[in-house]
């Protein structure tokens, strides 16, 4: 089996791993870096449980990415945003709105919502469109949309107050 040395920045830290050519980023994160935020749901790009952010590209399904192709790439996983204020707000809103039940899909959905709420302008349609990348078997998307809109409204309120 051919192996390759790959260097990549994950959550701001440089890591070097040796991987077989067919290893997916999802497996590298979970088995070689102890990062469990990205999860295996389908392995075919449909469920969004494995989503991570790649610098210069955007959100991508890590189950369909060969780690060997990512030499020099910068990846952010859910863990990389744990202390981010916007992510904290989203987590709080998820709790308030009951947007997570089993929680399997939640890190992927939170990453997508974080990505979309970091952009300007944002409205409910944009929020809904971002959730198209995700499947949630327990809760559906209504509560996630409510949570995201709550964060958006709070942000807007703060902006008005500051102005």
């Amino acid at each position, binding site marked *: 089996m051919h192996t390759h040395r790959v260097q990549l920045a994950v959550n701001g830290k440089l890591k070097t791993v040796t991987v077989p050519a067919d290893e997916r980023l999802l497996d590298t994160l979970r088995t070689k870096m102890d990062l469990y935020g990205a999860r295996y749901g389908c392995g075919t790009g449909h469920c969004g449980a494995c989503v991570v952010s790649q610098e210069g*590209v955007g959100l991508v399904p890590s189950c*369909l990415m*060969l780690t060997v192709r990512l030499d020099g790439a910068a990846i952010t996983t859910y863990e990389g945003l744990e202390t981010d204020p916007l992510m904290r707000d989203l987590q709080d809103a998820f709790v308030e709105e009951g947007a997570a039940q089993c929680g399997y899909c939640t890190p992927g959905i939170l990453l997508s919502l974080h990505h979309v709420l970091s952009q300007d302008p944002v409205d409910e349609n944009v929020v809904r469109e971002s959730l198209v990348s995700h499947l949630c078997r327990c809760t559906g998307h209504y509560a996630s949309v409510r949570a995201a809109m709550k964060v958006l409204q709070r942000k807007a309120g703060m902006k008005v107050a500051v102005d």
Partner: protein
Amino acid sequence: MQWIEASTLDELQSALVQGYRVIGGGTGLLGDENPVEKVVDIRRFPDANQIVEYPSRWQLGPVVTLTHLQAWAKNHVPGLADGLNRLGTPVLRNLATVAGRLANREPTSDLYPMMRLLGTEVLVMSREDPQPRWMLLEYEGPLYGANRVWLALRIPRSTKRRRMVFEKITKARLNGSIVNGAVSWQQSVANGQIHVQMVISGVFEIPCHLSVCSKPLDLATKIRAQWQAFQQMGWVPIDDFRASAAYRAHVAGVVLERLLKTQSGFFESSLEEA
């Protein structure tokens, strides 16, 4: 699996001779139940991920993603940008490439009808013929195969008198489409004739191409176009677990009707101006 990179024609040809398959985004290749044994990556070819604008055409590198095409199309071919919004999911489009979608011969590929109507050409290199050649994008052209590579795509620049819209009907968003299609209208400056072209796929093994010419674009022409399409639908309707052939034929009619209704007012008004 073996993975290599090629950044010159010689390296690529040698990879093809050894049985390597080109990898674009990998969303089709790697999600497959029977993954490939050998893949060759061509992202280091010059301009591989670029869209370059020339006076008469726009040229896309082989690993331009669907998201990139969509962002670019907003300013150049709005109908294409709208259509791409309905292909897969945002996360998928960030990874999947234009070439990967088009080289993949699924009858319900959403991109094919749109790119075909735009007159897209592909620069093809094959194992047998290492000299790259431009060819019109075909659904199942003789040059397609696992031992061929698309090194670039080019789209002729559109005129203001050309419009394109895309429509699809799916059983569920992620289950794949049942029927899809695109229609483009182009009006001749010389005689005001409107040339309507359509590609409807998902109903047949091979997408159905239709073309009608009219002045003005009236109800009789629309009925003629629909009639032509239904004639062809009788030939080889596909029937799979997602929808029966009869149901596909029914929704194809709905798609055609919507396509013909959409924006036909644009030409009716621009005819008066002409």
